[in-house]
C-alpha cells in the first residue's frame, strides 16, 4: 500500500466511527499537501498550473471546513454572481475529483450502492452523494444549480435540497440558442441576484458585476491566445492539471483567481519552448486516476494535451455591458447545450486552433451527454481529416475501467498519429 492508500484506509476507518474527525483529518491532509507544495513545488508543472492547483485545493479545504461560507453549485453556474455576493462556490465534480485523488472514491461509491442509487449514474455525482450521506461533507447554507449540462445535476441537487431542506435556486437553460433563450436565462439570473442578496444579506451592485464579467472576458481573451500558441509550443501535460481550467472557466469565472490563472497560462505558453510533440485535444473529463495512463501520459516529452473542450468552452467573450445578458450568453451558447453537432463543430475548430494531431473523445461512464455525442463528434472530426478515437472509461472510478485496455487503445492511437506525421 502506498501513502495515499494507507491514508485512505485510515480515513475510511475513522469515517465509520466519527465523520467529523475524518473531515478534519482529510482537510489536514490537504493542508499538508498545500504546505509541502510551497516548500517543494512540482517544477514539472508550469507556474499557472501550480497556481491553479493551490487555488482549487484551497476551495476544497474551505468546502470541507467552512461550509457555512460556501455555496454548492453545479459546474455550469456563472461564478460572477456568486463572487459578487462574496460566496465561495464549489462544484460537486471538483470535490469528487479530490476525494478520488485521495483514493476515497470506492468508499463513497459503496455508500451509494448500499442506498440503491444506480451504478450507471455518473461517478462524480455518486461520490459526492456518498460523501454527503456519510456526513463527510456538510451542507452549505444554500445551493445553485442548472439543467446545463447533464442529468446528474438534476438528481443530485433536488435530492439534497429535499433531504437536507436547503434553499436552492434552479436555472433553466432552454435547448434553443437564440436571443429569446438568452433573455429567458437573463431573467432568471436577475432573480438569482435577489436570491443571493436575500440569503447573504449583501448588496450586489450591477457595476461591480459588470467589472467581474469584464474580468471573465479578459481571462477568456488570454486563454484563447494561449491556446493559439499550442500549435507551435507545448508545456508538460498532466491530466489532473488540465482539469483546473474547467473550474477556472466556470464557477471561478469573474474572480481574480481565474483572471490571474489565464494571464499566467498565457505567459507560460509565451515562454514555452517550441516543440514537435504529438498534440492531443481531449473531449470531456480526463481519467486522471487511471494508473497506467497517468504513468504513461503525465509529463511525457512526446505527447502534449493541447486543449480540452470542457475548459475552453467556458472561456467565451460575452456582453459585459449587460452582465446578466453576458452570463446568460455563456450558458445558452455553451456547446453542452443544444444539439451535439454544435459540440462537434466546436471541437473541429478547437483542433484546428491548437494544431491537434488527433482528438481523444473520453466517453465517461454515466455521462449520456457525451456518450451519445461521441459518434457525432468523431464523425465531424474525421470529415475534417482530424483523427479521433472514442475512449470508454470512468473519470472518477478507475475500478470501472480495464486499466490495460485503456492504455493500449490510447498508445495505439498515439502510434497511429506518429506514423501519420512521419508520412506527411
Amino acid at each position: 500500500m502506498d501513502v495515499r492508500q494507507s491514508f485512505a484506509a485510515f480515513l475510511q476507518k475513522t469515517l465509520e466511527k466519527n465523520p467529523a474527525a475524518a473531515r478534519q483529518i482529510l482537510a489536514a491532509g490537504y493542508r499538508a499537501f498545500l504546505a509541502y507544495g510551497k516548500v517543494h513545488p512540482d517544477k514539472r508543472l508550469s507556474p499557472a498550473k501550480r497556481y491553479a492547483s493551490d487555488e482549487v485545493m484551497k476551495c476544497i479545504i474551505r468546502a470541507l471546513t467552512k461550509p457555512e461560507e460556501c455555496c454548492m453549485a453545479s459546474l455550469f453556474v456563472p461564478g460572477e454572481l456568486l463572487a459578487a455576493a462574496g460566496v465561495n462556490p464549489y462544484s460537486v465534480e471538483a470535490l469528487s475529483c479530490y476525494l478520488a485523488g485521495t483514493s476515497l472514491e470506492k468508499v463513497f461509491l459503496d455508500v451509494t450502492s448500499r442506498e440503491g442509487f444506480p451504478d450507471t449514474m455518473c461517478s462524480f455525482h455518486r461520490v459526492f452523494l456518498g460523501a454527503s450521506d456519510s456526513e463527510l461533507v456538510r451542507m452549505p447554507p444554500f445551493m445553485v444549480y442548472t439543467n446545463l449540462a447533464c442529468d446528474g445535476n438534476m438528481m443530485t441537487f433536488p435530492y439534497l435540497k429535499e433531504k437536507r431542506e436547503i434553499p436552492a435556486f434552479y436555472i433553466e437553460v432552454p435547448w434553443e440558442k437564440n436571443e429569446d433563450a438568452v433573455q429567458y436565462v437573463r431573467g432568471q439570473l436577475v432573480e438569482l441576484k435577489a436570491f443571493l442578496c436575500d440569503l447573504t444579506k449583501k448588496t450586489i451592485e450591477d457595476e461591480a458585476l459588470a467589472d467581474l464579467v469584464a474580468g471573465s472576458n479578459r481571462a477568456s481573451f488570454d486563454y484563447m491566445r494561449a491556446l493559439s500558441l499550442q500549435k507551435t509550443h507545448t508545456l508538460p501535460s498532466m491530466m489532473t492539471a488540465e482539469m483546473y481550467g474547467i473550474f477556472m472557466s466556470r464557477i471561478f469565472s469573474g474572480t481574480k483567481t481565474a483572471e490571474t490563472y489565464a494571464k499566467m497560462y498565457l505567459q507560460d505558453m509565451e515562454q514555452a519552448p517550441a516543440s514537435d510533440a504529438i498534440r492531443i485535444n481531449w473531449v470531456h473529463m480526463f481519467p486522471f486516476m487511471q494508473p497506467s495512463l497517468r504513468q504513461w501520459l503525465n509529463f511525457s516529452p512526446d505527447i502534449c494535451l493541447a486543449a480540452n473542450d470542457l475548459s475552453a468552452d467556458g472561456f467565451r467573450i460575452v456582453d459585459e455591458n449587460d452582465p446578466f445578458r453576458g452570463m446568460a450568453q455563456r450558458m445558452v451558447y455553451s456547446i453542452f447545450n443544444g444539439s451535439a453537432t454544435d459540440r462537434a463543430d466546436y471541437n473541429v475548430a478547437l483542433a484546428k486552433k491548437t494544431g491537434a494531431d488527433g482528438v481523444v473523445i473520453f466517453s465517461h461512464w454515466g455521462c449520456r451527454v457525451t456518450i451519445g455525442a461521441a459518434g457525432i463528434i468523431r464523425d465531424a472530426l474525421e470529415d475534417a481529416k482530424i483523427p479521433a478515437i472514442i475512449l470508454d472509461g470512468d473519470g472518477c472510478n478507475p475500478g470501472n475501467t480495464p486499466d490495460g485496455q485503456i492504455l493500449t487503445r490510447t498508445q495505439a492511437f498515439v502510434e497511429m498519429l506518429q506514423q501519420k506525421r512521419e508520412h506527411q
Partner: protein
Amino acid sequence: MISYVCKYTPLELFAGFGESVSPLNQLPKTIGKADKIAPSNLCGFSRSLIELVEEQGVRNLILTNCCDSMRRVYDILKAKGNLDFLYLLDLPRTDEECQVDRFADRLLALKKAYEEHTKKTFDRAAFLASFTRNQLPQEPYVGILGVRAFPELEEEIRRSTGKKTVNLTCLGSRDLSSDLAGMAAAPDEKTLFRLYAQALLSQLPCYRMNNHTRREKIFLDDNLVGIVYHTIQFCDYYGFEYAQIKNRVQVPLLKIETDYTGQSLGQLRTRIEAFAETIGVMEKKGAALTGEQRHMAEREGYFGAGIDSGSTSTDVVILDKDRQIVASRIVPTGGGANVSAEKCLQMALDDAGIPREKVLQIVTTGYGRAYLGEGDGSVTEITCHAHGAHFLHPIVRTIIDIGGQDSKAIRVDENGNVTNFLMNDKCAAGTGRFLEMMAGALGLSIEEMAKNGLSWNEEITISSMCTVFAESEVVSLVAQNRAVPDIIHGLNRSIAQRVGALANRLGPEDGNRSTGSTRDDATLMMTGGVARNEGIVRALEENLHRPIYISEKAQLCGALGAALFAVERIEKDLKESK
C-alpha cells in the same frame, strides 16, 4: 401517424391537424441498426427507439428533451435517421408562470413547424374535441411505475397478478386537467396555447421534473395495492427515485430492471409471480387429490415432495405427513431441467424406499420449474426459500440466497411470509457464477477455493465489480505473485459487498428485537450451496456487522419449502374433502 415517447407530448395539437398518434414503446425484433449507430451504454430504451424507427418505418416522430439520452437520440436520428418530420420539443422542468409562458411559445413553434411541413390547417374544434380524462380507477390496482414499460411487460404483470394494472410510468398516466371552457373561449391562439401548456405541465410530474414532491400522490392512493417499479439499465432518473421511495411506500413493491429487450422477460416472470404471491393475489393451486389417493392417505399416510430446479443443481426433498425429511438429494443440473428433476426424484424415492404413487403432491420451484413435467404445481423459489428457512429457523427475518445465476435478499414476517425481496439477476457479480469464473481463473475447484480463502494474511481489494474486469484483475494479481488465499479473501469481500448491499436495501427488520449475537440466535440466515463457503459467510458477517445462521440443510432450503407446500396442500385437500 405521429409517434411519441413522452406523456408531455401535445397529442391534442396533432388531433387538431387530423393526425392519429401512437406511442413508440414496443420491443424491437433485433438491435441491428442501433448497434451500428448508437453507443451500447446509451439507455436500452433509446437504442430500442432508434431500432423501432427503422423497423416500423416511422416517418413522423416527436421527442421531448426529457433526458440526456433522448437529446442524443434526437441528434443521432437527425444525422442518420430517415424521417420526414423529427421534432425535439423543449420541455421545461417546472410549471411556474414563466415556464408555462415559454412552453406555450414552444408549442406554437411546433404548430407552425408542422403547418409548414404538411401545409395542413389547424382545426380548433377537432383540437378541443380530442381532450380526454384518464383518472385513476376506483378499484384495487397494481401500479406500474418508473420508466416506460413495453406492452409485453405490462401484459405479464396483468397476467401474473390477476389484477387491474395502471401504467403510471413516464409514458403512461397521461391525464390532462384542462380548462376546456377557457380554451373554447380563448380570443387568440396565444391565450389558447397558454391554457394548453398549463394543462400539459400540470400533469402528475414525471421524475425528470423539478417538482417531484407532487409524485407522493401516486404512492398514497388508497386503491394502490402494489407497485411494480420498472427501471432500464442506464436510465438513472428512475433508479434514483426507487432508491428514495423503497423504504417509504406502504404497499408491496417490486423493482425490475430490463434492458428493453424481450430476453429479460423470462427471468422477470419469476419475480413478478413471486410479487403476486406477496400481495396475495395469486393462489397457489395444486391438482386436487383423487378419491383413491385420499383413501390411501388416511389409511397409510402420505408423502409430499419438493423439486428445486436451479441453474447449477437440482434438489429434491421428500417429507412425510409429520414434516420429517425422509429423503433428500442434490444432483448437478445437466441434460435439461426435466431429465435432472426426474433422475433426482427417483434417486430420492429409492433412498426412502417408497413408491412414486405414495407421493401425493410434488411442488416444483427454481428457474427450471416451468420446464418440468413432474409436479402438481409450482411456487417461486423466493417464497419456497422463505418457507423452508422459516421451517428450519423460525426466528429468521432476513434470508440471503446466493444462487448459480442470481442472488436474493428476502424479508419475511414471523410466519415466514415474504414481505419484501430484492434480486440481482442481471449481472453475474455476486452470484455463484462469479465464484465459478474466479475459481477457474485461479485454477481451483470451488471446494478448494472455499478452503484456501480461510488462510489469508493480507487484505486485497478487488475493485472491479464487473465479472469480466474482476477476472482480469485476478489474473494480474496472480501475475504479481500475490498469495492465492489473499486474492480469494478479496473476492469473498467483493461478493459480500454486493450481496450485503442487497440485504441492506431491504431496510431494518421490524421492531426492536435483537438481530442476534451468535450464529445460533441470528435472525439473518443464508441458504443455498454458497452457505457452505465459510469464507463468504465470514465476509458477509463482517460486511453486515451481524451473525448469520447457517443450517446443515442450507442447500436444500428451496426444495424443502416446496415440499412443505406439497404437504400443506395435501392436508388442505384432506380437510376440505371431509
